[in-house]
């Protein structure tokens, strides 16, 4: 046997063979010699392996594990319908909608650092943001335009789901969850509109919430409302605005709905939405086409 090529620290043969190599300095030297390969090949080290629980080489098993064992990716299955990755089927619209939501969350958090939800101050905060905060203007712009874009992509996503008949059994429930997400998306936009506290938002929200006066039974101008004792000071509109006009309380309420309540709700529904996409068997297609003559088999099946 020649030189044992052993980088392993506790080599019993080496340690026992000749004791004269011992000594603190010598030990340090050897330890550093061991450390070099570790640094050069981090992927074999303990830290790496503790983070990534499997090797990253190109084996089918590892390709699957890379997805399944990652918390951010595990909503995906390991493998999917080969035609489903084509852009033409989903247009990527659901994914884009979700990505815009992430952009909105990130830019929204930054905006919150500069914004106070109170009358007079709110408007000044926006001006300050536009003129004095580094990148403040682009931050606000991006939050605004991503919100508009998200509505467009959600509509287009819904259209593609409809066109591909993807709401049919077993995906009925997920379509309904989608509709709720659409409503929440619109409400997020609407509540955000008031926050700059400028004329645009103020009047849009005034017009919008005025409709609540006319709610049947619950609004003071709606059919059956006055008979039930509704006034401008106790009906649904009052509950929405925290007052009978769009003022400081309305601003605070819009802020809380916009920054906390609706995003949390939307996140919960998105979790359900994505979970159901998986549990309903992944996205619906492109599925093999059925013929009219076979349609009765499906009903029974």
């Amino acid at each position: 046997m020649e030189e044992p090529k052993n980088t392993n620290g506790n080599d019993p043969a080496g340690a026992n063979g000749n004791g004269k190599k011992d000594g603190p300095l010598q030990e340090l030297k050897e330890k550093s010699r061991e450390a070099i390969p570790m640094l050069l090949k981090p992927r074999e080290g303990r830290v790496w392996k503790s983070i990534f629980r499997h090797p990253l080489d190109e084996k089918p098993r590892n390709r699957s594990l890379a997805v399944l064992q990652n918390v951010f990716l595990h909503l995906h299955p390991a493998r999917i319908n080969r035609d489903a990755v084509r852009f033409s089927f989903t247009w990527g619209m659901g994914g884009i909608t979700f990505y815009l939501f992430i952009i909105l969350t990130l830019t929204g958090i930054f905006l919150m650092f500069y914004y106070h939800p109170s009358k007079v101050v709110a408007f000044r905060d926006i001006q300050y943001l536009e003129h004095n905060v580094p990148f403040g203007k682009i931050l606000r712009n991006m939050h605004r335009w991503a919100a508009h874009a998200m509505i467009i992509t959600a509509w287009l996503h819904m259209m593609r789901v409809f066109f591909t008949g993807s709401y049919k059994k077993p995906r009925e429930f997920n379509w309904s969850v989608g509709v709720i997400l659409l409503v929440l998306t619109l409400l997020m936009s609407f509540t955000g509109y008031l926050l700059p506290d400028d004329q645009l938002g103020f009047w849009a929200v005034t017009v919008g919430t005025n409709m609540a006066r006319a709610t049947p039974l619950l609004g003071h101008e709606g059919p059956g409302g006055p008979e039930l004792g509704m006034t401008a000071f106790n009906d649904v509109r009052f509950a929405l605005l925290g007052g009978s006009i769009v003022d400081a309380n309305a601003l605070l309420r819009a802020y809380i709905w916009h920054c906390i309540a609706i995003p949390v709700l939307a996140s919960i529904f998105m979790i359900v939405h994505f979970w159901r996409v998986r549990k309903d068997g992944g996205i619906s297609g492109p599925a093999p086409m059925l013929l009219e003559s076979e349609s009765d088999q499906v009903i029974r099946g």
Partner: protein
Amino acid sequence: MDWAQLWKITTLPDNIPIVLILLLLPYFTWLGLKQAFANDRLIKKLESDPEMAKTHHRKVEPYSKGWDKLVHVWPYLLRIEFLVAVIITVIMLVWSILLDAPLEEPANPNLTMNPSKAPWYFLGLQEMLVYFDPWIAGVVLPSLIVVGLMAIPFVDVNPLGSGYYTFAQRKFAMITYMFGFHFLWIILIIIGVFLRGPGWMLFWPGMTWDHHRQVDEAYVHLPQIFGLENPLLMAIFGVVALIAFVVVTGGITHVFFVKKMASTYKKMNLIQYGTVQFLWITMLALPVKAVIWHMFRIKYVLITPWFNI
């Protein structure tokens, strides 16, 4: 002709998205329908050739025996997702650099904005306020839109067309959706964005917004056209007119279902069929009311002491 007015509306920063959707919606509609028609051609071929139908893989996408039906998410899907994320980020960055979000004067309850418009995606609702009272346009119809959308999967009993684009196999569903979304919803938004000026009056493209134009207050109620003035008679007439509308539109729809969609009709239970009829009739009421309002200035059909329709 004052094209500057139209240009001003179109280039309002908050209206850029509606301009965008006017480009994206036709494109994606085309993309979807193109695939639907391609699939329909194949379906036709397979229907007429049972031998081919037995062996065919039933997609227009190419397929050969040796190929896997599934591919790995990593890398085949994740790389696309990553790329799309990068592209969207770039688009949003460029958009945010080029176009500034609007900021008007500070809110002032004493200075009414005229017209005060909701954001473009709500202008469909605001536009409905012209034709119906707020409790219908602002509360009942929006709720029905949401509930109606949620009901779609439960009333569509057609087993065909699940998971692939098709038009021929789902004619009624496709036409209904496009009537509701492309026609009603988007048209109302376009009217709201581009054609409504001060006082929520109609201004055609090329007209200048005239803040002093008199609101045209003249209107009649349907019963008055028939010479009725007595409130009770008017109310009775209104109820009869509404019932007539429901019977006529519902009847036509019914005949259509029985004649043209017999197999679908047979599969539906009464609740499903009733829901479809109800939603369909309600949807038709909107353009009908819009037409009688614009052509005859008819404001209400049914007038009661508590509510008007």
